[in-house]
């Protein structure tokens, strides 16, 4: 009896474990192996081994440009999401229902709409016939091209990622005790000091986990640079796609994808350790 009781959780999670082993663990290992295979233009993937694909990414300036672009676009997107998302979540938290729930839905519900549709919407807004272009021309900006530039990618990226910043900040704002704020104000703190010394430190963990999610998702996003960056402006995800579907150089594509995965995981783990660990200590 004790024996079967020990096995029961494994029996219950067995089907899921089977699926995750077959479709997550095994394919990742296979892709790891694939990235070390030699690729030949004529023969395709051969059976001999090499680390050339990783070296190529480290050495070739073409990849440096793309990795650097992906990094700064993602970092800037996270920063803009903080600058827009944090005040917006705070403003929402000071509203009363039904406005509060309504606006929260407007802010978060786009998450459920396909990212292809949202990116396409932006490519129409930012295109040569779009409204943004017309408005810019009224202000005498001449004919600036926005679509297929880094700005276009970033505008759509902020739109898609903003909910991921608002959710954790909103959650930590809900945990605030309004009496602490009132106490600070009654002790003659200015609204600014209250904000800086009372509210901000308490929602900081929310901001940090939000920016982490936004950065990670931006760095690996595929549809947004694909639709708004055009053929010329590549990010890491879009060159992986090109290597797989156009160049047919799967080993190189696999190496780039794995570098992206490892970089993502490394950033998440260090960020968690360093920053959140410090906040846990500070807040008890």
């Amino acid at each position, binding site marked *: 009896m004790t024996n079967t009781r020990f096995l*029961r*959780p494994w029996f*219950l*999670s067995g*089907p*899921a474990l089977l*699926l*995750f082993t077959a*479709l*997550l*663990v095994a*394919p*990742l290992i*296979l*892709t790891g192996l694939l990235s070390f295979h030699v690729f030949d233009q004529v023969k395709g993937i051969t059976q001999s081994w090499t680390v050339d694909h990783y070296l190529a990414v480290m050495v070739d300036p073409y990849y440096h440009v793309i990795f650097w672009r992906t990094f700064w676009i993602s970092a800037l997107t996270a920063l803009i999401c903080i600058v827009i998302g944090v005040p*917006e979540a705070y*403003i929402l938290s*000071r509203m009363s229902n039904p406005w509060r729930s309504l606006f*929260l839905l407007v*802010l*978060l519900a*786009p998450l*459920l*709409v*396909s*990212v*292809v*549709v*949202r*990116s*396409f*919407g932006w490519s*129409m*807004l930012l*295109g040569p*016939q779009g*409204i943004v272009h017309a408005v810019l021309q009224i202000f005498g900006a001449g004919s600036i091209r926005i679509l297929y530039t880094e700005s276009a990618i970033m505008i*759509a990226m902020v*739109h898609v990622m*903003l909910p991921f910043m608002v*959710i954790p900040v*909103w*959650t930590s704002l*809900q945990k605030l005790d309004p009496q602490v704020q009132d106490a600070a104000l009654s002790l003659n703190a200015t609204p600014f000091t209250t904000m800086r010394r009372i509210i901000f430190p308490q929602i900081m963990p929310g901001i940090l986990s939000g920016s982490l999610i936004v950065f*990670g998702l931006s*760095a*690996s996003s*595929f549809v947004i640079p*694909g*639709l708004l960056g055009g053929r010329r402006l590549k990010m890491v*995800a879009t060159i*992986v*796609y090109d290597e*797989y579907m156009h160049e047919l150089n799967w080993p190189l594509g696999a190496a780039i*994808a*794995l570098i*992206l*995965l490892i970089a*993502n*995981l490394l950033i998440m783990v260090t960020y968690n350790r360093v920053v959140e660990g410090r906040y846990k200590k500070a807040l008890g």
Partner: protein
Amino acid sequence: MKKNGFLALSFHTAVMVFMLAPLVIVCLVAFTPGTTLSVPTTSFSVRWFKAVFAHSDLVQSFWNSLWLALGSASLSTLIAVPGGLAMTRFHFVGRNWLNGLFLSPLMIPHLVLGVALLRMFSLIGVTGSFLWLTLAHVLVITPYVLRLVIAASIGFDRTCEQAAQSLGAGRLTVFRRITLPMILPGITGGWLLAFINSFDEVTMSIFVTAPATVTLPVRMYMYATESIDPLMAAASALVVCFTLLVMILIDRLYGLDKILVGGKS
């Protein structure tokens, strides 16, 4: 608590316009009578909607997406419910490890999952198989169901189960008559969230679909990289409407705000 000032409200209005702009624009442009991407001002037409329904590739990939989402959400619920119960009802060696594994598709970029699955599918010769595509979708949507099942089965009173057991109910009867009805809102919510996530999934699917199994978002992505015309706007508007329907369903059955913020608020 203080009220929002004028500056705060203007900022808020700007953010709301920013969030709604791309969705509103696709719905407006979809009604254009012309052939360019312009907002109709004088006359409206449904010609582009008719064109979407006459476009056999788009219609075919809509049905692919629908069946795929229905199948994968259901399969994923079937494996996530026992999985979630194992996580919450038992303390066993390797539980945290298993939980981490089951939630890891949320952390791994879908692009990486796509290339990894493409490699495996081509090695075992199942590229273009609808069944394996469904299993791939089950993998990425299971974390969503699992989280809601775990939240539901932590949040309820275990004494009901113990009462039933002490009254002589068998293990299966307890599950069927007590546990299942009590975690049912979590299961329904999880199923719907899984459904919409599978329906929207594009980055992984673009690697593992074949011409016959192409899903709607993949088809629309391919189309949009080549040409931008009102046909895409009409298709997008229909997707927005479809998503709205699912949202209303989620709201009725589980609570839209609860599912979006994460079940704890």
